[in-house]
């Protein structure tokens, strides 16, 4: 298998790095949540991609069975849970951001920290 043959990994890694980069480099809290989402999505894609079996079909048993190769259904199911977790995280994060905006009048992390410092 050559390097390009693992293209699904490259996509995952690229997405992950983009997500992490946004987390590290952006001060805007909403953007941070977006970065977090991209980061999570990359992992979900990773799980789903490893479930793919070459030549496999959707894991629905046809009537009467038959000699069919299926993709692994388990990761998809697990990722449903992970997506739920992701949604919950995003929801909670956004709710906190709303409150932060009410309390500080800003959602830029550096400005918020500056205000906190001033309060000390």
């Amino acid at each position, binding site marked *: 298998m050559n390097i390009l043959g693992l293209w699904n990994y490259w996509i995952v890694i690229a997405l992950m790095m983009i997500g*992490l980069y946004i*987390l590290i480099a952006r001060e805007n*809290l909403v953007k*941070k*949540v977006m970065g*977090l989402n991209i*980061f*999570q999505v990359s*992992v979900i894609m*990773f*799980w789903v991609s*490893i479930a793919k079996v070459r030549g496999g079909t959707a894991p629905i048993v046809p009537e009467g069975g038959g000699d069919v190769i299926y993709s692994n259904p388990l*990761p998809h199911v*697990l990722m449903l*849970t*992970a997506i739920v*977790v992701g949604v*919950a*995280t995003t929801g*909670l*994060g956004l709710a*906190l*951001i709303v*409150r*932060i905006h009410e*309390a*500080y009048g800003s959602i830029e*992390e550096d400005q*918020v*920290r500056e205000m*906190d410092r001033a*309060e000390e």
Partner: protein
Amino acid sequence: MTEHLPALQTALPLLAAPVCVLLRRAALVRVFAVLVTWSCLAIALSLLQEVLGHGEISYALGGWVAPLGIEYRVDILNAYVLVLVATIASVVIAFPLAGRELRIPKERFFLFYALFLLCLAGLLGITITGDLFNIFVFLEISSLSAYALIGLGRDRRALTAGFSYLVMGTIGGTFILIGIGLVYQMTGTLNIVDLSQRLPPVLGTRTVWMAFAFLVVGTSIKLAAFPLHQWLPNAYTYGPSVVASFLSATATKVAYYVLVRLLFTVFGFAFVFERVQLSALLLPLSLIAMVVGSLAAIYQTNIKRLLAYSSIAQIGYMTLGLSLANLDGLTGGLVHLFNHGLIKGGLFLVVACALSRVESPRIESLRGLGKRMPWTMAAFVVGGLGLIGIPGTVGFVSKWYLVLGALDQGLYFVAFMVLASSLLAVVYVWRVIEVMYFSDEERAPERDDAPLSMLLPTWVLIGATIYFGLDTELTAGVAEQAAAYLLGGAS
């Protein structure tokens, strides 16, 4: 009925959480939540007794047998952690909520209890389950409710603290998820026991190395191991004291449990300590955590922040025990898990008591409280002695094992550092005591102690630090058994 105890352990608080929302009436909800939590403690204790008496318990959730189904597996290690979590939860939940520390009004206190029970369910679930993906799910349940609990703090900085915790916790959780995915990719199983058998043949592959790195870093974030501890100080400082008490005593401890489980059961001693040589990185980081955490604690002006930094140092002790990778060291780490839970849980409750009488958690505002709130402050002194590790308190027991473990490895320097950082603990504890007892007050303050309903839970934990400092059978005895079980024939 009794055979379903493992399922009930998590199902009970999980189902009780929405019930809280339905009940709504604060007094009613409180009684209900207390009852539920105490039942959890009863279940945990009976599980521990069962395990000590008859060995491991395996419970197939929904009748689906492992490795396909989700297995709840209770052995001596997680029975021990379950008891700690349930104990702390039982005490903390009985502690009266103070309106001035929470941003929600009294008529919405039921939300607090719902979140608390959810968090408890998550923590118990992480501990009891024998399935890696299940660990991730419960971890997220407990973490999400913990973020919200922190955000309940009255100070607006609680919001930013909660948000930081959320982002970092999610990064940690996602790292863990990647790790689990990689492991699954290599073995096709998520069951821990199954994994421990299927993993050894593929341990040499890069995928497993990757999985290892992601899992360790992920749990390190949840554990607040140095230098990934940055979410912790603000979360504990600005979150309600009761929440800080609960989380400091349980959340990081459960994460430590996960780390131990991963390293010793899943990857195995030989891989972790001989091929990867985890200690080469973890040991120095632990030492730095001990020193930096203690030093930072010395300079804090806010007592909650001081305790939070002290937690970082104490977590350093626990990871130190782990990285020593011998019987005494691991026993020390595990026993410190329990002991520090008691101490720090108790100390944050002391702060909660104090905050029922003074406005601000700044250390200056504790001036003269030694006379005004003698019982509360006596509890602080006892807990502080525990942090220092005076013989007769639990802290001494942990440090004793850690030092023995270090000496056993010939690491005299490490043993020295353990003792030296105790000296630092003397300093930061003393700073508070000095303000409380030795400040010149013009007028002798009126005696005005916290109500009994607050003092009682506080003293239960603080008293336990003394009790378990003297009677070490349950803690050190069980921890040593658990350590021996984890190390197997490895050392």
